[in-house]
């Protein structure tokens, strides 16, 4: 089969690889009909995440048709159309039973390594480093889905791939980011980053009833899309984020702040971002936490910082004194996808939201390597790429 494989920094290739096979009776094999390049794939592409090996198959946002099921899998049958959440979960461990699927205690097959690095291991993820299991990802023609009797979401007839594909990651990720802000009708929610996750944060915050939603970025077309979803926008290259946020909140600051940027923050010109660039360049810091610092500074006291943006390692000069003295709450983590999928699928089916609004590029799997670069460089108006194997 064909698959997009990581061969090193900024080196993704479409290769011919062996087809996957059932390895456990709970497995299923899914023939991928649509997959997407996620913003967090770019952290792998740019070489910021440790634990990748040459030849790893990329991709954790995919859906398709079940073509084979293991003997003990009572949930799926051949022919089912499924969206596969990016977090792999067993459904039986203590964390899964509590709904914390992204920290499943059994699905990371490299748990001992992750235990050493993180203290305790999170769940296994598709196509996202050997620290989270080294599972082959979904930017391929076929995928083996472990614990396939738990997470895959069956798709009802009548809904297209493009309507439901993002249930596997970015829609629930934006939704959880907004949900964990505990949005009140009087709240201003500020969202850093108008990439795909940021776009879903905007729409989730609107649906959950925030009085005002503000989105911060510098790419004109992304800001335009955020405005279409109901956000007031701030272009951080042309305006002071802190001044504008204070202006829009009568000097009080937003009650809720969401970091939909993560470890590769660009903040041209600010002193702290130059500092991060310098330290990252000489490998003294892994991540660039400009957004976290800005959120901590500008958030209204007793507010909430929600962090769906991916961070990978160690961060420097985090003003934790601000967090403590202002009594801020930080909520973060990979998304507990299955906690939200039933509700979100219903909202899609009822037409409340159509997630396909975010797709800007559609292509064949073979075009994936070039589109990684297009997406990374934000060229050609690229916001979300969907590939069809």
């Amino acid at each position, binding site marked *: 089969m064909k698959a997009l494989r990581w061969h090193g920094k900024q080196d993704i290739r479409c290769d011919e690889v062996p087809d996957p096979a059932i390895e456990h009776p709970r497995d299923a094999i899914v023939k991928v009909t649509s997959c997407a390049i996620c913003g967090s794939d770019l952290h792998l592409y740019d070489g910021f995440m440790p634990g990748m090996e040459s030849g790893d198959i990329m991709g954790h946002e995919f859906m398709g048709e079940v073509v084979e099921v293991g003997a003990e899998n009572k949930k799926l049958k051949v022919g089912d159309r499924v969206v596969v959440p990016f977090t792999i979960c067993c459904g039986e461990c203590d964390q899964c039973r509590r709904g914390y699927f992204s920290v499943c205690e059994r699905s990371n097959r490299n748990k001992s390594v992750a235990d050493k690095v993180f203290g305790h291991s999170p769940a296994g993820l598709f196509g996202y480093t050997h620290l989270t299991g080294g599972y082959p990802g979904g930017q391929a023609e076929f995928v083996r889905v472990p614990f396939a009797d738990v997470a895959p979401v069956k798709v009802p007839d009548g809904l297209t791939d493009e309507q439901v594909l993002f249930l596997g990651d970015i829609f629930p990720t934006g939704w959880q980011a907004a949900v964990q802000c505990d949005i009140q009708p009087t709240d201003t929610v500020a969202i850093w980053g108008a990439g795909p996750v940021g776009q879903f944060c905007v729409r989730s915050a609107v649906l959950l009833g925030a009085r005002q939603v503000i989105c911060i970025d*510098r790419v004109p077309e992304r800001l335009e899309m955020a405005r279409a979803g109901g956000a007031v926008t701030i272009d951080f290259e042309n305006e002071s984020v802190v001044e504008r946020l204070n202006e829009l909140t009568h000097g009080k600051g937003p009650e809720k702040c969401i970091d939909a940027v993560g470890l590769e923050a660009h903040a041209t010109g600010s002193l702290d971002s130059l500092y991060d660039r310098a330290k990252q360049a000489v490998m003294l810091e892994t991540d660039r936490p400009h957004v976290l610092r800005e959120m901590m500074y500008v958030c209204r006291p007793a507010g909430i910082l929600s962090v769906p943006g991916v961070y990978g390692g160690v961060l420097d000069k985090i003003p934790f004194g601000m967090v403590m003295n202002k009594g801020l709450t930080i909520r973060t983590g990979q998304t507990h996808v299955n906690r939200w999928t039933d509700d979100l699928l219903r909202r899609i089916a009822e037409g409340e939201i159509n997630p396909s609004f975010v797709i800007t590029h559609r292509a064949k799997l073979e075009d994936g390597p070039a589109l990684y670069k297009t997406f990374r460089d934000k060229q050609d108006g690229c916001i979300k790429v969907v590939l069809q194997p």
Partner: protein
Amino acid sequence: MLDMTRRSPRPETASGLARGLGWFSIALGLAELVAPRAITRSLGLRGQEGLVQAYGVREIATGIGLLGTRQPAPWLWGRVGGDVLDLATLAAAGGSRRQREARGIAMAAVLGITVLDVLCAATLSGTPGRATSRGGMSTPRSYGYGGRRGFRDLPERMRGAARDARIPEDMRIPKLLRPYGN
């Protein structure tokens, strides 16, 4: 004259080379900063220790710039400017025959590095960049995303449409910590 179109490295090779030059800059800069006396003594530049240290700071800054950016071309052209300064400083110095010989070797080395800098900078100057609101390297244009609201109705009419969502207690502010009257 150098034929850039024929001899320039491929962009991927040039990117790798730019990183290499970045590390080289930092190493050279550190040497100039930490051991200026040894350098001035061997090259016949005695009394110019302060200048050598300033060049060291320049090299380190350029190196960090090169390693920390996705658009290294301006930093590489900055290196070329630095190379010219280095060559001028070396050419203007006096000293013994042995020191002049050492300077000759140093100038040859700087010239070699200058050629690399120019080739690399020329190759990467043609590499397209990202469209930004200020123009950047690509011309920004409208992509017409203004109609992509994603909702079935206008956002102002969709505000609060999901207030029926059951927010799990573990993702809410704990009841005991909620503001009065809430």
